[in-house]
């Protein structure tokens, strides 16, 4: 092939065709993101006069201030972080513990327990909404962020246990036996051997679970009521009601709401993609 003179030409043509198709696909995908970014910097008058779809004729940062302060996005972002960060830490700690015990020891009924936990996560959340909101009322934590943290942990844990179980099971048993010979107990084996080895899976699941919990809407509007407690997703819907057709402010709000997860994605892209593969069930 390489000997014929047309080969490099044909190769260049396929390369060009590839970049053309992949490039236009990427452009199509990035266009809505670019649009919202541009809109978030336009003034209301510009949009009102020229329409949302027109070329921008103004530049202003005020929209962000308006969404941030008057629109309550600052509080909402804080709420979201108060929920997401502890949730990720606790749910992964709990899941790692359970996965360790189930995957490394011959506990009775370990497979039943594993599948029971996974099954709980597969349930459609709709069946849980009403009882969960009543449960949090009964416990006196309705409309408190702790209720949202609780339900996020309870609903998510089964899935993370399942993924970590698969990962930890693949760690060779000899590593653990060496530690047992040296007199290490289960806690030391867990803390000093298995957990460090499970780091890649934990990193992937952290990136993924952060975006899931941060982006959740359904659980938040089920156990929370007051606007001041709402996380960023619910606040964004509120913003839409408050600033009807003020697309500049709504766009700025969307950018604020998406920024943390995009930052996590760009920083931990590799882990994130690994997590998507681990996390094919969501």
């Amino acid at each position: 092939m390489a000997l014929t003179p047309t080969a490099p030409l044909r190769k260049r043509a396929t390369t060009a065709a590839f970049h053309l198709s992949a490039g236009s696909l990427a452009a199509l995908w990035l266009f809505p993101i670019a649009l919202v970014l541009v809109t978030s910097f336009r003034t209301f008058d510009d949009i009102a006069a020229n329409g949302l779809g027109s070329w921008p004729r103004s530049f202003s940062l005020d929209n962000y201030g308006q969404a941030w302060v008057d629109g309550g996005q600052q509080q909402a972002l804080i709420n979201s972080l108060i929920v997401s960060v502890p949730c990720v830490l606790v749910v992964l700690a709990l899941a790692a513990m359970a996965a360790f015990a189930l995957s490394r020891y011959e506990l009775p009924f370990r497979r039943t327990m594993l599948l029971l936990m996974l099954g709980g996560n597969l349930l459609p959340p709709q069946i849980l909404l009403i009882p969960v909101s009543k449960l949090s009322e009964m416990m006196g934590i309705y409309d408190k962020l702790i209720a949202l943290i609780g339900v996020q942990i309870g609903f998510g844990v089964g899935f993370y246990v399942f993924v970590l179980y698969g990962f930890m099971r693949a760690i060779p048993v000899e590593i653990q036996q060496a530690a047992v010979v040296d007199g290490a107990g289960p806690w030391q084996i867990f803390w000093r051997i298995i957990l460090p080895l499970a780091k890649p899976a934990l990193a992937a699941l952290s990136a993924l679970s952060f975006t899931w919990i941060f982006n959740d809407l359904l659980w938040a509007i089920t156990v929370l009521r007051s606007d001041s407690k709402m996380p960023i997703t619910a606040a964004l819907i509120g913003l839409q009601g408050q600033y009807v057709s003020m697309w500049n402010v709504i766009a700025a709000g969307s950018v604020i709401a998406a920024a943390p997860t995009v930052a996590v994605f760009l920083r931990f892209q590799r882990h994130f993609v690994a997590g998507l593969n681990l996390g094919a069930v969501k």
Partner: protein
Amino acid sequence: MAVLTAPQRKTPAQPPLSGRRGRGPRRNPPLLFAFVLVPMLAEAMWVFWPALQGFYLSLTRWDGVTDPQFVGLDNFREMAGDEVFRSATGHTVLWLVLFGGLSALLGLATALLLQQERRGIGFYRAALFMPVVFSLVATALVWQAIYQPDGVLNQLLESVGLGSLRHAWLADQDTALYAVIVPALWRQIGYVMVLYLAGLKGIDPALYEAAKVDGASAWQRFRHVTLPQLRGVNAVVVSVIIIDSLRSFDVVWALTRGGPYHSSELLSTYMYSTAFQSLRLGYGSALAVVIFLLAFGVICSYLIRAFREAD
């Protein structure tokens, strides 16, 4: 999921766990039971117990204030005559077929396109799965701006001479549901693509070499090598899509709340508004049970596969 990534992670030489019997520690220290029981309790409290209650509540009439009143299967009987329920079920099925089918097809197509290792491939892939990290609410608002009467879509139609197609996309009963599916797809395709990319990577290149030697065309190689090799991924993708479709809520809620006139109502949004806006908690629970029943087969087959994997 473990089922999916098995080709990369599983070491075939590893004996299955049951093969270790007798070699592992004899007695199980109590700490291990705590390790399992604490997470189990968390899930039992927030999932298992509420789920049981949910099933019971579906047999009651309840306004959330007075005590629930047991009415047997009345709620389900009521559904038979409920127009909104019927159209919401239809929309859910349509959603499953369109959203599910298209995200699987286009996810596979983009994965095939972007599987080749070329310069700039990382950028293209990142562009396609960037939306996966957005909340569906933010996604919905972005697209709402596109669908506005003075938005980009209408302006675009105008500029290519199709001004007559201008539309209030989300406010028209005939287009609302489809207008909602597009943003959901925009976000889902990148996700499905990632799953297929991993699956394609797991295929042994020797198979393609052999097929080439045998004179198979590109289509034949796809049909007889790629597709059969992707069977495992397909099963995962289908489960994910069905479960996701039945759970779909955020994007519809943020865009249309199921309106106008229930034209974009899904079972999930109907369930939510029945329960928390109309405060018909018993009927809402019954709707949730229907959603559960629709998902039941997928959940079971998923668990059966997981069961085989887990051993």
